[in-house]
């Protein structure tokens, strides 16, 4: 195939690449490297002199080793499970056309934004002795039915990890899959390959960059899992993240926290270099097609079963906890009713820190949109530079941008506290919130854009240049239209991350701009059935708002998406 060329054949001018890299590098340096170095430095070198004794003492401790081992294996198993469940889902959602496809696609992303404490609570209801599963078992088997109780088990942690990260695989891999030219597989089939072989030898290699990327992201997320482990695993189980959190926020044992943070960082960098190797081998330039041309109604019996199986799985795994949430929002002391909703939406709070619903919605939208735009700009620049530039530097930046995904949020958050008071005090500033959120969202943008950008035939750009287009015009009229779809996927994800308040943002004080997750936490922190109900109603509202925003983004058109 003559149009498949290794990406290294393309080179941009070094000056242009460097210019594109300035902003992402400064951003990463200012909002990640500096604060994290500051806090780890404070912990390991309290008198300005690094005390390695602390490090060796911590790392040789028996409990630390068992925590590290648990962190690693649960992350690997979670990643494998998420891929196993997510890849068929990605196929169904990107290649098959069926009623409700758009809605499902949005639905599976919603878990991403829900606070873990809310989802954890819904999971407990589904995994406990009074769960619908047990009710069903009891109805079928009668007295002899076993009672499943998965609360506080590793299984519960793994299930929740799949639930939260399903969308990472579906969106990252599906985004590319929806644009793979189906004629490639068709050709293999015509030449006599079985369906499985055609997939394995044609589509799978082409999808590998996206699969490697989503696996890396899921690994980093589950490696640093915090809330899920605490709530569903019970207090007996801890990840490195949990221990860092405890050492920092409760014990104020900075040497311990810093040693653990360093350990976490080393593991993350190691994982990312494995990922770097995988993805370098995998980059193949290919011609992409419009996603609407790729999707078809299920044609064979196998496809129909695949569709049904995935719909069932998505419903049970992803939509059931959301359904629990919605149900709880309408449970009141006197049965079902809209009491929680009317209280949430109508009551004007009379205390300083209570949050009116409308204000929380406004603030969440504000931060969501700002963070999305920051991430799109940063990620767009980094991805463009990576497409034009030499492999080594840009590959390094690509992986460096992913390190924040695998870094303890408490490390970054406390790093902000001690580092960002100079030259301007950003710590209480609302600007810090979208910037901190962009730290997590940017790698998604890069991961989503890069495979698509790299697949653009360089000769298209050259032709445009020959015809007299300036570099920026080439980007606008060649790259942008082709990348548009991926840009929208990236925007949707960034928005979800920002609205879901990932990472260090929880440590950024912002008394006057409370968001929906903040409002949920404040409601959950109080006794009273009505407060719990309102927290559930607010969570449902958060889910609905996210779904609406994702649907709207899905319908946006950037340039001439889908018409190239």
């Amino acid at each position, binding site marked *: 195939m003559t149009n498949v060329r290794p990406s290294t054949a393309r080179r941009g001018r070094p000056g242009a690449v460097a210019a594109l890299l300035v902003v992402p590098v400064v951003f990463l340096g200012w909002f990640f490297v500096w604060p994290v170095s500051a806090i780890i430095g404070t912990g390991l070198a309290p008198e300005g002199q690094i005390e390695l004794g602390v490090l060796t003492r911590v790392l040789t401790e028996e409990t630390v080793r068992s925590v590290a081992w648990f962190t690693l294996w649960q992350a690997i198993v979670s990643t494998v499970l998420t891929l196993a469940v997510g890849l068929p889902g990605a196929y169904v959602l990107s290649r098959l056309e069926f009623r409700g496809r758009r809605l499902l696609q949005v639905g599976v992303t919603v878990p991403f934004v829900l606070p873990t404490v809310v989802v954890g609570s819904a999971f407990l209801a589904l995994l406990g*002795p009074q769960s619908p599963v047990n009710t069903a078992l009891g109805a079928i088997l009668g007295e002899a039915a076993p009672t499943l109780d998965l609360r506080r088990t590793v299984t519960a942690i793994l299930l929740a990890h799949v639930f939260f990260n399903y969308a990472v695989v579906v969106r990252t891999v599906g985004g590319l899959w929806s644009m793979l030219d189906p004629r490639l597989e068709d050709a293999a089939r015509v030449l006599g390959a079985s369906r499985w072989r055609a997939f394995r030898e044609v589509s799978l290699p082409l999808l590998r960059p996206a699969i490697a990327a989503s696996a890396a992201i899921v690994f980093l997320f589950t490696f640093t899992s915090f809330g899920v482990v605490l709530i569903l695993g019970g207090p007996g189980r801890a990840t490195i993240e949990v221990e860092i959190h405890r050492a920092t926020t409760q014990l104020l044992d900075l040497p311990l926290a810093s040693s653990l943070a360093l350990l976490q960082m080393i593991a993350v960098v190691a994982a990312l270099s494995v990922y770097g190797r995988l993805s370098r081998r995998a980059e193949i330039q290919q011609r992409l097609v419009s996603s609407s041309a790729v999707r078809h109604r299920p044609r064979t019996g196998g496809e129909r079963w695949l569709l049904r199986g995935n719909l069932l799985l998505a419903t049970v795994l992803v939509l059931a906890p959301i359904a629990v949430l919605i149900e709880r929002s309408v449970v*009141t002391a006197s049965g079902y009713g809209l009491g929680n909703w009317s209280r949430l939406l109508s009551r004007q709070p009379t205390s300083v820190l209570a949050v009116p619903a409308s204000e929380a919605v406004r603030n969440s939208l504000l931060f969501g949109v*700002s963070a999305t735009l920051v991430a799109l700009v940063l990620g767009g620049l980094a991805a463009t530079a990576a497409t034009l530039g030499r492999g080594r530097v840009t590959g390094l930046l690509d992986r460096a941008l992913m390190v924040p995904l695998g870094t303890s949020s408490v490390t970054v958050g406390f790093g902000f506290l001690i580092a960002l008071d100079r030259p301007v005090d950003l710590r209480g500033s609302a600007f810090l919130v979208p910037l901190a959120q962009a730290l997590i969202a940017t790698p998604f943008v890069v991961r989503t854009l890069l495979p698509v950008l790299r697949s653009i035939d360089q000769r298209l750009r050259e032709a445009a240049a020959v015809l007299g287009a300036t570099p920026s015009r080439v980007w606008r009229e060649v790259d942008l239209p082709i990348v548009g779809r991926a840009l929208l996927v990236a925007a949707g994800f960034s928005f979800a991350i920002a609205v879901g308040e990932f990472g260090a943002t929880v440590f950024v004080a912002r*008394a006057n701009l409370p968001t929906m997750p903040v409002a949920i936490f404040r409601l959950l922190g109080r006794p009273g059935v009505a407060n719990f109900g309102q927290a559930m109603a607010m969570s449902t509202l958060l889910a609905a708002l996210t779904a609406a925003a994702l649907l709207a983004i899905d319908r946006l058109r*950037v340039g001439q998406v889908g018409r190239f």
Partner: protein
Amino acid sequence: MLRTTHGTPTRPPRPRPRLLWLAAAAMLLVACGEGGEDPATDDTAEGDGEITLLTHDSFDVSEDVLEAFTEESGIEVSVVPLGDAGTALNQTILTKDAPQGDLLFGVDNTFLSRALDEELFVPYESPRLEDIPERYQLDPEFRALPVDVGDVCLNHDVAWFEQEDVDLPTDLADLTDPAYDGLLAVQNPATSSPGLAFLLATIERFGEDGYLDFWQELVANDVVVTDGWSEAYYDEFSGAGDGDRPLVVSYASSPPAEVYFAEEEPDRAPTGVIEASCFRQIEFVGILATTEHEEEAQELVDFLLGPTFQEDLPLTMFVFPVNEEAELPEVFVEHAVRPSDPLELDPEVIGDNREAWIEDWTSTVLR
């Protein structure tokens, strides 16, 4: 190779830089939102009138109460919550040289010695201390002043105990009785403030030599441990949420909260308090040593210890006032329990042993 997948290549219309405009507009909105209402961040405007109260997430105050203070004194107060009690204190300690505010509200007796050892506060002997009983004034140098008090107690599901005809426990030691097998939910003292208070209660009750044996028996009696208060209260406890355990570690003020937040006020609270299990938590406020607004901060402390704020406390934070002049709201008078002789431990003893106790507890209960 300018072939397209379908149709003929057409020249796309010039895309407008819509995204950029959106970006600019959003940033502007953020800027407005901030500049408009946040006196904490643009305190380049020197001089009186603006101070920042750092606190934990459970803090709250009625709007009109705080407005009354501002009207009286001309001082604007910005309230900045910094996470749970431990996180808020540790953040304040770490930013000692570049503080984010002027006062810290909400250090409790379990964390008091850490705050004092770090020399966070400057002394201020507020005249309001006259109305506050000595037993709450744990810092003789007046760096940390008592501002509210609460008790962490076992709560029980009233209906459950009536239906099942089980006697209520009257002593912590009862909890190891087989009659209470699988009935109790507690919080992890390493991550939860009521969890720590309950651990301290058991240490005070059974002594340093005996408390781990007690916990071992609790484990044998199928105690469940959650990470935080809300998981224990809403997911495990049957009296307020979906759980199936009729005993939970919560607060003495939880029953009145259940009544206050109910849709239709019930005649009696659905939950009750077991007095023998109560551990006293006293919260303190202190003026940060680095403040440039010491006088204004002192005025605010006087206000926080005064009757207006103290009477506002119960229904915003569900704690009790320390000022004896303050009157309790009716729902507290009717449904709250004030244990006459709660368990207490010297803050310094707590400070010296906290980490070791938590470590030993973790080894005994969780590993």
